[in-house]
């Protein structure tokens, strides 16, 4: 495809932003500045960024417990994300949601979700809405290899296929569900295989190659836009860190060689090298990009810290919409 350089740089920039956002979130959690559980997306950046590059605000996505990357890739504002992590009134959920429940309906981000598989039915509903709207918009559902074991995966796949809904099921196979390797959960570790029984295409892509992800997911998204129905897209990737942390970083339990091998396939390093070799970017441009990302994140933290905590008296606000 013919790309402007800007589009390519934006892919790289978004991946760097996601990584730095999550590295920072881990530090902030360790420092007691933010609360609850943080699930880092580090290592998987190419998936969210590659897929969302094909979407507009009128397309909708659902995300998981590991949702920061999907939010950023879908165009959410890191200031309001950060304020949410800080539990402040200027957060996306006014401090009510925290890391696991960030949503920005205005950009079509229908929410992270603390329930494994829980976002799949919601995304299917968004796809139904898109089908009824008839404007060629689509829904994309992100979920992990672990979610493939849940019944909701199957139900969503089945009905989407029967009704030819405009949806793409993006399975981020990062090789583990918490501490269980994918082979503990599935006999076939190639999860795209599930597509066949629903009569939909199943595609597999290197989830650490942002250009590959963008291209393969475009095929699926365009198919959906044309009204030809859903696709299951498996992105093979890896999370660099632990499943989740609260006050302290938990010890690593996976084989060191495995981690090293996947780190050698860093999606960001790969895209940087690619863009530098294509002369889209110079080393110093890259440095500038990184500095800009850090500055933006500092601004986000400052924004969050300046925002007040919610007032205890507002505890009942937002419960019910007025009829």
């Amino acid at each position, binding site marked *: 495809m013919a790309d402007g350089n800007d589009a390519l740089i934006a892919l790289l920039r978004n991946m760097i932003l996601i990584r730095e956002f999550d590295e920072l979130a881990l530090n902030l959690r360790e420092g007691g500045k933010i609360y609850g559980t943080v699930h880092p997306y580090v290592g998987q950046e190419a998936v969210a960024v590659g897929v969302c590059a094909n979407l507009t605000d009128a397309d909708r996505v659902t995300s998981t417990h590991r949702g920061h990357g999907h939010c950023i890739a879908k165009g959410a504002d890191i200031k309001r994300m950060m304020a949410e992590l800080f539990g402040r009134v200027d957060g996306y959920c006014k*401090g009510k949601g925290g890391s696991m429940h960030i949503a920005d309906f205005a950009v079509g981000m229908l929410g992270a979700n603390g329930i494994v598989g829980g976002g799949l039915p919601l995304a299917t509903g968004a796809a139904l809405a898109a089908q*009824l709207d008839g404007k060629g918009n689509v829904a994309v559902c992100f979920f992990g290899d672990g979610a493939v074991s849940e019944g909701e995966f199957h139900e969503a796949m089945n009905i989407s296929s029967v009704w030819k809904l405009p949806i793409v099921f993006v399975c981020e196979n990062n090789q583990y569900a918490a501490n269980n390797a994918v082979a503990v959960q599935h006999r076939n570790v190639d999860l795209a295989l599930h597509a066949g029984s629903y009569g939909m295409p199943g595609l597999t892509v290197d989830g650490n190659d942002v250009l590959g992800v963008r291209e393969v997911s475009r095929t699926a998204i365009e198919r959906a836009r044309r009204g030809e129905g859903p696709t299951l897209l498996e992105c093979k990737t890896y999370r660099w860190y632990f499943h989740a942390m609260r006050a302290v970083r938990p010890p690593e339990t996976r084989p060191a060689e495995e981690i090293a091998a996947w780190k050698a396939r860093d999606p960001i390093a790969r895209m940087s090298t690619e863009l530098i070799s294509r002369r889209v970017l110079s080393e110093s441009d890259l440095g500038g990009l990184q500095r800009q990302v850090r500055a933006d994140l500092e601004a986000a933290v400052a924004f969050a810290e300046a925002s007040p905590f919610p007032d205890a008296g507002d505890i009942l*606000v937002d419960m019910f*919409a007025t009829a």
Partner: protein
Amino acid sequence: MREITFAQALDEAVAEEMRRDERVITLGTDFTGNPHKEFGPARVRFTPISESVLTGMGLGAAGCGYRPIVNWRMVTFSFVAMDQVVNQASKIRYMFGGQADFPVTYRCSTGGGMNLAAQHSQSPYSMWMHVAGLKIILPATPADAKGLLKSAIRDNNPVVSFECSRLNAVAGPVPDGDHLVPLGVADVKRSGSDVTVVGLAYYVQEALAVAAELAQEGISVEVVDPRTLVPLDVETIRASVRKTGRLVIVDEAPPTCSAAAEIAAAVVEDSTTFRALKSAVQRVCAAPVPVPYSPTLEKAALPDRAAIIAAIRCTLK
């Protein structure tokens, strides 16, 4: 006024709201009243047996501008979809800071009395009441069924409509035109001075029958129908108890942590009402068992008029 059955009233509510607003769509494995003939397959969707995804789809489509009605049919079948109810539908608006509305209506039938045995004779509304974030209707007459369901469909929140199976064939007057009953307003179905009987669904009718019977011996029974379980019109119930000083609650769910338990607790935690209460509160509920099939046992499991009368007499002792 026109007399129609409870079941017809519900069908009319759906059809009128679908006519009124084309964003209203409906999903289910089957439909009464043939809405697909009038509204077509895009808006009336026959579905695979996949309650969990349907429940979440209704919610998701609601968040994207539609007003879905998801019909689980029996409440029993909603339990496979409970994650989407408890973890998603009830929490989604508040948890996301009110940034979107979710106008979805979930419908299902409830209740025993038809020898359908344990799995198909359930009345577990209190489980939904406990989960903060869902509105809940439970009508007892055709007019309330129509008026409440229409209000539910127009409400901008997830609303669960529990529809008592034993009432389906019951006929009653229903006002013409755009008949709406607001959510959250109880109805004093009969006024009285000696004892308040709060009945739910089928047992509103039974309470009224008992009230008529006891009137002949000079016992004046007030029958209150909450109609909406969330928000529960506690004030109307408390006011009735302050007047009569006695309270009996009748429902076909088992008593433990039931709507009946909630009504009892709501009454005795208010000082003025507590002081007005002259005798122990009586719950007339199902035996704490899965509803059995055999007629003799099912009859023993569910409340009946004799049990209501006995409870009323007990409060008058």
